[in-house]
């Protein structure tokens, strides 16, 4: 086996060359080549870390923007709803006010009309009494030839009190009845 031929001077030379070449390789690698690899790897690590951080920052920013946007949307919606509710309420109250005003005017008109009617009726009643009294008086005069105005009026009042007030159409009847009583 040539490997065990330690008497061979080439064997010693091989070991010396091994030490020289291995030492040289170790020197080149440790001093120049490997730091270079390390620097590239380090650079990449730094870059990746920086990129990751930038990405994280961008994500945070985007999240914040998203939140702001969502808040703004919610606020806008709330505002719009409030405005709608406001307008609705205003319209309702306006309508209510108009209705109330109208009602009041109508009520007043009704009241006025009723007052007018009452006045007219009172006037009519007054007139009725007078007409009845005069008619009764003239009837009494024609029938009896004497006039007793006070008695006629008492009789008219009595008949009117018994028959009700608002029956102007029956003034004649009243007058006749009053006259009949007197006669």
């Amino acid at each position, binding site marked *: 086996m040539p490997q065990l031929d330690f008497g*061979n001077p080439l064997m010693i030379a091989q070991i010396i060359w091994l030490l020289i070449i*291995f030492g040289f390789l*170790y020197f080149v*690698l440790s001093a120049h080549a490997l730091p270079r690899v390390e620097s*590239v790897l380090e650079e990449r690590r730094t870059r990746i870390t920086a990129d990751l951080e930038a990405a994280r920052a961008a994500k945070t920013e985007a999240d914040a923007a998203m939140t702001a946007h969502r808040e703004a949307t919610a606020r806008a919606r709330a505002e719009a709803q409030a405005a709608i509710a406001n307008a609705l309420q205003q319209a309702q109250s306006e309508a209510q006010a108009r209705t109330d005003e109208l009602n009041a005017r109508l009520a007043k008109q009704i009241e006025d009309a009723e007052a007018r009617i009452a006045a007219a009726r009172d006037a009519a009643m007054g007139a009725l009494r007078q007409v009845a009294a005069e008619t009764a008086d003239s009837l009494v005069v024609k029938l009896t030839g004497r006039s007793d105005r006070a008695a006629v009026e008492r009789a008219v009042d009595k008949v009117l009190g018994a028959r009700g007030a608002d029956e102007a159409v029956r003034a004649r009847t009243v007058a006749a009845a009053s006259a009949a009583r007197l006669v």
Partner: protein
Amino acid sequence: MAAEGQTIDALSQFELTPVLGKVGASVGFTQSAAHMLLAAVLITALVMYGMSKRAVVPGRLQALTESAYEFVQNLVVGQVGEEGKRFFPFVFTLFMFVLFGNMLGMLPYAFTYTSHIAVTFTLAAIVFVLITVVALVLHGKKFFGYFFPEGAPIWLAPIIIPVEIVSYLSRPISLSIRLFANMVAGHVMLKVFATFVVLLGGLGAIGPFVAALPLAVNIALVGFELLVAFLQAYVFAILTSIYLHDAVHLH
């Protein structure tokens, strides 16, 4: 071994012959040294040229360099710990030198310097000296406590201490012989089967058919030897790392 005038000469491939004419002969520069130099140049070129672009996204060669770098770094840091980083250049050099020696030896006509016990033992001796010096520098006298584990009964000392010393001293031997034996065995087998191909191929008409068998074996062996070449470099590096761990941490 003579066979029909031809011989199965599996060992002459390991013979040292000077190269570079008279100059080479005068300084004992053999083909072995030439292959070491070639390996050293290739390793340097791989690392320097591979990293020359300093690309953030590595190309093929840079990726190869980086994976070799990180492979050895993980190995060293995994075994020794963070303190092991200063030994990384040494283990890297050792791993690459052995790996390239093994791999170059797989090329036709190439010489495998790791098949020489003188080479592997010198490398193992460097490792041995390194771990001993590191242990002595880091731990001083306490290093000798390594040979007698704490807590062992004192009366066992006469047995334990010699055993520990022998196991410590046998480290460079086992380290060197493992690599040497693997390389020699592989190359002898390749040579033997290759010779079979030639010998059987000369057996007249059926020769080529019979010769196909050892050829097939050889093809399988080449693949196997490539695996062994990597594996032995890895084993050399990881054992060095384990020894360095012992030197740094003393158990």
